[in-house]
């Protein structure tokens, strides 16, 4: 059943929940429903974040919520040949490919696959049915619904999403690729939920791609909980290439156990409004947690990266590097926070945000914050906002490069620092290619979607080189 509202607020959504309670809670385990109830009451209390909140000072949601969104809570998890509507164009990328269409799991053979090595990959809704103990053991343990309004909202409405369980000691050879497609002819409000568990000593690579196939308005509030057990290694890539009318809020909660390693990489190539929230807890020692981000935005796009790294135990290492190039009237916000608690001695934490503004109308707001309560630590942070180094430009020009080429070269090199951190070779090459195209002004969103683009409305992202 479809329900629409002209604009969204906490009361309308709570009201909607009551109406649709049966279809929303139907497939979940009792514990999940209990957590859901708590989250709902939190959301009912706090509502959507406003500009009064420190982390939302520059990010105004009000106009985005003033849309007639369509909600659909009926189970649409189904079998479908995804290839018909979408083909990932990262050539040579050999992955377990999983697709979510409008927030629902789409499978080719079965909703839940158990591989020979014990790995379970599939739909979260199905996993709640088949492996309730496993889901209950982890679900909601990392997502801080009390602190994050959108995490509360997502948890309140959780239905389906991706479920991955990698047993102890299993190293997956192939990366898992999750493709999140939004394809609807009306404005949709989606809240996919992912649960990823990497067992002791396991190794998982996850590529998470967000695409939209139409130019319709959409609002996606996705949440991923990633549990990294002892000695496990998780590589997490997020590639966002969405239409201008899409709003994307991603909430990623990572919990790292002893001696585990996490690399994450968020690449925002296109998108109307993007807010990436990353929250990492380090309650046990000897972990490594590295987070990279790259955003190339133009027109009136808005990208906001919010990172919180909580050093609870001693002897942990964390590193953040976020870089962005802003054109036209684009706005980029970075708010990073490193918390080093009293007992987290020998913490090493670095945080860096670098922005290049190409126009006078682009804006960058960056807040790299450190909060430190332990004394034997090494923490540093830095932030720069500026333009291309004139000396380097001069060097290139003096070597005979034309201004345009020199600029492109420098921007590609600027972005390269983040792109090079991608360890999947095929993906790295593809991203490098996309970044280069993007910076040369050749990338349009139509490059990405193979079909379904009836409106030939050009969404080319041209960077006007004369402005640089």
């Amino acid at each position, binding site marked *: 059943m479809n329900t629409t509202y002209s604009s969204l607020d906490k009361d309308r959504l709570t009201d909607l929940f009551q109406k649709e309670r049966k279809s929303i809670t139907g497939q979940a385990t009792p514990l999940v429903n209990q957590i859901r109830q708590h989250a709902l009451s939190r959301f009912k209390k706090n509502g959507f974040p406003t500009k009064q909140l420190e982390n939302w000072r520059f990010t105004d949601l009000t106009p985005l919520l003033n849309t007639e969104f369509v909600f659909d809570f009926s189970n649409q998890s189904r079998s479908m040949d995804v290839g018909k509507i979408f083909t990932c164009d990262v050539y040579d990328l050999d992955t377990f490919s999983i697709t979510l269409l409008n927030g629902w799991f789409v499978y080719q053979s079965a909703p839940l696959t158990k591989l020979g090595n014990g790995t379970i990959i599939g739909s979260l809704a199905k996993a709640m049915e088949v492996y309730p103990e496993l889901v209950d053991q982890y679900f909601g343990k990392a997502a801080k619904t009390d602190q994050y309004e959108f995490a509360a909202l997502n948890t309140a409405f959780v239905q389906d999403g991706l479920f991955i369980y990698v047993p102890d000691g299993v190293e997956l050879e192939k990366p898992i690729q999750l493709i999140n497609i939004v394809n609807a002819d009306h404005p949709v409000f989606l809240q996919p939920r992912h649960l990823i568990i990497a067992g002791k000593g396991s190794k998982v690579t996850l590529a998470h791609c967000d695409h939209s196939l139409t130019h319709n308005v959409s609002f996606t509030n996705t949440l991923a909980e990633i549990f990294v057990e002892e000695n496990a290694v998780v590589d997490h890539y997020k590639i966002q290439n969405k239409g201008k009318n899409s709003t994307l809020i991603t909430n990623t909660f990572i919990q790292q156990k002893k001696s585990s390693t996490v690399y994450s990489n968020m690449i925002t190539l296109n998108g109307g409004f993007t807010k990436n929230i990353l929250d990492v807890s380090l309650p046990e020692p000897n972990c490594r947690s590295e987070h990279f981000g790259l955003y190339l935005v133009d027109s009136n796009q808005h990208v906001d990266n919010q990172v919180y790294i909580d050093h609870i135990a001693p002897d942990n290492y964390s590193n953040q590097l976020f870089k962005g190039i802003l054109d036209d009237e684009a706005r980029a916000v970075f708010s990073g926070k490193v918390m080093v608690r009293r007992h987290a001695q020998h913490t090493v934490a670095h945080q860096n945000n670098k922005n290049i503004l190409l126009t006078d109308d682009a804006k960058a707001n960056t*807040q790299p914050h*450190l909060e430190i309560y332990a004394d034997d630590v*090494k923490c540093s942070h830095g*932030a720069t906002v500026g333009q291309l180094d004139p000396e380097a430009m001069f060097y290139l020009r003096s070597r005979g490069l034309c201004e345009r080429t020199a600029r492109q070269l420098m921007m590609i090199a600027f972005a390269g620092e983040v792109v090079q951190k991608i360890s999947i070779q095929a993906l790295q090459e593809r991203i490098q290619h996309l970044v280069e195209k993007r910076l040369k002004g050749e990338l349009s969103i139509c490059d990405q979607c193979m079909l379904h683009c009836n409106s030939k409305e050009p969404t080319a992202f041209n960077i006007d080189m004369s402005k640089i």
Partner: protein
Amino acid sequence: MKDDDNKILQEVTGSDYKYGFYTDIEMDQAPPGLTEDTIRFISAKKNEPEFMLEFRLKAFRHWQTLKEPEWAHVEYPSINYQDLIYYSAPRKKPKYDNIDEVDPELLETFEKLGIPLDEQKSLAGVAVDAVMDSVSVGSTFKKTLEEQGVIFCSFSEALQKHPELIKKHMGTVVPYTDNFFAALNSAVFSDGSFAYIPKGVKCPLELSTYFRINAANTGQFERTLIVAEEGSYVSYMEGCTAPIRDENQLHAAIVEIIAHKDAEVKYSTVQNWWPGDKEGKGGVYNFVTKRGICEGDNSKISWTQVETGSAVTWKYPSLILKGDNSTGEFYSVAVTNNKQQADTGTKMIHLGKNTRSTIISKGISAGQSNNSYRGLVKTSKKAENARNFSQCDSLLLGDQSGAHTFPYLDVGNRTSIVEHEATTSKISEDQLFYCLQRGIDMEGAIGLIVNGYAKEVLSKLPMEFAVEAQKLLSVSLEGSVG
């Protein structure tokens, strides 16, 4: 080795506040509480012009609509603004021509502080306008200044003698609507200093004011206004120490600086209000609004501060760089010990073309204190080629202390360059080892390293002040560091 370190650190950081004494001078006080009547009382007491009373009342009415800010990284019991005494002045309002006529008890106080008020003539070029509980009691070197046309006097004197200057400039940099404490100050401020440097004058002396909070339970609401006309230069110093009092004292001052075309103002301050005892009992609440504006082209304002005192500090000396090619500087050393809390930093707002700003902030936290740097660098769309460099380092002594950095960078055009970097660490083992190996004892080594760490800022202080600042660093962090 580790234990020794800790022991020495404790010794080094555990020493008492040396400037805790209380001078018994008769006070003339307003009854506690804050109403329009209190404001009328203050204004009448000071025989102020009508516009001043109106300004105060407007500020008071606005203040009543405001809520005390809570966003700072500090915690303190809430203040009952109706319990405070908003006016207290030495009863016998002295008018001294000669320093010898000053109340000997007062002179003794200053002597304990090591302020060489009675040695002014021998001390090279420092004119002191000593402010004791809000009313100015002594001004020296007036003549030298008068010859150049420099006005340097208490705020109330300026209100009597130069009301037009006050009316023109007061509240233009920090309007009473600015924030909760600025509104409060605008309503009830008792006195302060006023400095006016006429066009083209390079002030021959370094202007200096010493503030002290003296009576129990009185808030001190100072107001300083410095106006530097075209092409002038002035170096202004302000230092403060406060005696031991059990109840928290509120200090909510306003400092306004206006620098016109080609003018340069150097503002240095050492703040050492009573920080409370080791358990965090007592101490001064220092909620100050300081702001300067580089109004004209090529003007320059520089803030240098050494913050060692106060139980709670909430202070962001800021600069608005409005004139083209104007320059702003902020150098700060903030030391917190025991249970002190400091949330301090700066704001650099770039509006003009080719504006430059530098921020160097050094935080040292010891004991169970919390020390935060909070800074904003903002470049507007029109601030072409604006340039900022910020460096905010924190040094942690002891595992119970906290050091936090909250920078905000808002950049609104493509030609500006804004850079921020910060590190937080404890004293380097290598440096300690090096010093020890050269035969310097542990205490001396820590002293040497801390001093070296703060040197970049201390070296920006005027000579006379640098000595006092180093002394204060010693008091705050030592036995023998310093």
